[in-house]
């Protein structure tokens, strides 16, 4: 099974694409500095019965160099940022440098937790938005404290993952990332003078 999944992802562009995709094996890399939420998210993703998701966890990038040759190509890299911690943001920002630029064609996504918390400075949220907007990536907000929130996050990640892995006809990951890319909102709070 391992071999198959490797084969599938490495030759995704090839002519075996159609045949192998019926196997529905997805490769997902979660990167979270705090290593708290990624486990429950991974569990929720693996439980999904319709598809097989191979989830890999990492604290930060780059991942260790051993097994480098046998490592499959990842369909989607997800950076999980806990907004209440500055370290979490900095770590994600630092990890981004180690990612091959090919991934930025629609195979990167940001996941933000605790966005509605009182202890989040507005500047940090803006910084995360700017980061996601800079790389034209989707930015998902997650209610990581509730089971429903985790399940819905897993569902949304799968939606993106299917497109990123090329399982949705006529759509490419680049197209998806342009459709759903994060934008930096205007400051609604500022009184308007018009």
């Amino acid at each position, binding site marked *: 099974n391992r071999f198959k999944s490797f084969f599938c992802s490495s030759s995704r562009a090839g002519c075996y694409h159609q045949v192998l995709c019926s196997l529905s094996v997805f490769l997902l890399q979660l990167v979270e500095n705090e290593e708290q939420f990624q486990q429950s998210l991974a569990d929720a993703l693996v439980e999904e019965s319709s598809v097989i998701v191979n989830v890999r966890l990492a604290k930060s990038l780059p991942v260790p160099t051993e097994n480098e040759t046998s490592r499959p190509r990842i369909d989607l890299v997800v950076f999980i940022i806990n907004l*209440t911690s500055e370290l979490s943001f900095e770590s994600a920002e630092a990890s981004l440098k180690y990612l091959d630029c090919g991934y930025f064609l629609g195979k990167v996504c940001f996941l*933000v*937790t*605790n*966005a*509605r*918390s*009182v202890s989040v400075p507005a500047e940090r*949220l803006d910084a995360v938005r700017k980061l996601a907007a800079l790389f034209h990536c*989707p*930015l*998902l*907000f*997650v*209610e*990581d*404290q*509730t089971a*429903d*929130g985790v399940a*819905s*996050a897993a*569902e*949304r990640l799968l*939606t*993106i993952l299917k*497109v990123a892995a090329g399982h*949705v*006809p*006529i*759509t490419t990951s680049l197209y*998806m990332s342009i*459709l*759903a*890319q*994060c*934008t930096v*909102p*205007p400051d*609604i*709070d*500022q*009184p*308007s*003078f018009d």
Partner: protein
Amino acid sequence: MAATLNLSGLTDSDPGLNDQSASSRSSNRSLRIAERDRRKNEAEDPFALALKYFSDVEAGTPVIGNDQFENNLVLVETVAYSKGLPPEGISIMLEFAMSLRMGNSPCVRVLKCLIPATVVPQEAVVRAVVWLCVGKIPISSQVLFIKWVLTVFDLIDAKDQLRAIYGFIFNFVTEENLCPFICHLLYLLTRKESVQIFRVRKLLELQSKLGRQPFLLYLLSLYRVFCPELVTLSIPSRMRSGFRNHNSPWKSALIAVQKKNGSQVSPTISLPFMTNSRKRKHRHLEIPKLCSVVNKPAQTEPSFSRKVVPFMQLNSFTELLENLHRIELPAQMGSLLASSMALHYLDCVQDESALLRLNFWLGYTLHEEFLFNSDGGASQDLDEAQQFLNKLLFTQDFLQEGFSATEAFLYKFLRVWDGSLLRPQILSLLSNIPVVPSLKIGRLLFEPLMQLFFTSSVFFKCGLIECLNNMLSKWLSWHTVYALEDDLDISLNSHTSINMTLSEFKDSVMELVHFVGRLASVGLQLESYHSLLLSFILDFYETVCDTFVKYELPLIVMPPAGVFYPALFATEPVSVDRLAYIMYRYKVNLTSAKLDIKQKMKASHISRQTFYEFNHYKAIMVNCLWNSKMSEPDMGLQLKEELLCKSNIPEYWKSFDLINHPAFMSCAIDFHRKCWPRKRNVDLNSIKLSRPWTWYLQYLYSQGYNGLKQFVSSM
């Protein structure tokens, strides 16, 4: 010990006390005195002793190394955080803290533990304000005190004396650090009588010094509502959502105490700051009790020239009508949401100050509850939040307009929403928002919605399309109701004072329709033409196609190709039938628009392009379904002849006529069987002959495909 502390239990256990408001306070007090006497006898009660220590301790007693002080304070803190302090305890401790009898450090510590179990006696707060005027207290403690007052504001048992010292409190606005909090407090205390020209001047002066600070603007906007002749300032329609005075340490402690006390807590108090929305709802249903405490002194106060009737004294609709002109609003505006009488009042009186204050309360509450969680949402009780939002929805439905506070809240909430939390409520609230100017609509609404739409499941996509459909039909209904006939100017939502010209309104509607068109085209593609999604999209276009006839809006927008073709080539007959109905309605609308132009000799509101697009779509539909011609030169969809031949489909051009269309083929076979029951091999082409063809059409219509019937008969 619990029995001795539970002072409120005594006042609340007798319902007569609350109802006979005239006597309640004095008897309340006498009860308290009796309680105090009783407590004196219980010398062994350590908490009473601790309180006694703090009321008797002499000024200048050292803090450091004072074990007695330390022990007593720890005891008070324990009681405060576990059960909350009784009113008497609050008075003693506040007096101790604000008098600085033992210096500043215990003052801060005491202020932090002032968690009321039931109510806060007004006298204590007034005395504390007096200490504030003495001016010895360091500024940080002053801020802390005002923040505390704001947190427990709704627990203060009466407000009359506080209103009486409005001027004293107002003096503190000049203190830069205190200003935001003082403005908030003043906002809560302000009445028409308090608005004076010198105060307005002072505030304007401050504004020129500090800039357009939201707290000043808020207070000024309230002043303007009361006395528009005194405040001529222009105030932006969208403002920062309220005063940002988060008092989370007290708030969470209060919630904890209230939850623990449960039934012990006086049911007459409801906290707008509390997460406990269920409490909010039930308590609001008991507004009379609440107000009897809050507003009673106002009646006896001699300085009042006009007689006011508090809301709580109204028990029937007739009474409401009789007293409509002299109603005093409750101190806590949120309670209006739950009272049907209050809603009637708001609806017919259109009291601007009431709506302003309600909006303010709502903005604050929504912001605190949904955007500023103390722990990222873990403690939020979903049931309660749901009930609260449902209540809000009910109110908005009743008043038939959205609150501007809800709107401002939604714009922020959408930006951090995960797309599933409280989805039905949020989408319903969203469909209630008033018309958004076309310049802002993209940034405020479309950007966050796009990000949610494309990354969510097909069910979210359906929900969002439905929500946008509701939004559009509400906007259109507003247009029909509010449009003024002469100058084609519409004033939407009188309270937010958004005035729009017809062309601005048309721009907004057009933006919305085009936006849904984009979502629909791409969404259908992403979800491989999901029939449920298609059905919701066709729902939307059923609203869009009737804008002229049904809503008298001179604007007609055709669906994009990404919606038209998937519906035309859908595999379920319902979608094709609905598309036919939509095309029929477009025809009716365009014809009457044309007639309208001819009759009134006006320039055409509908662009030529729309007519062209309609004719184009109509030709394609007729060709495909009727004439069995697939590719016409101007069809837009161009496929090479050779390519189609290569597909080896015999007579491919017939593939989408009413007989061979994948959606209708089963009907055709069924018809064939009924028409020629003896024929062994099915030859669908035989239906094409003129007589069976008429019968076949009759058969289709009898199956309920009325859209097709209307489409065919109108061509």
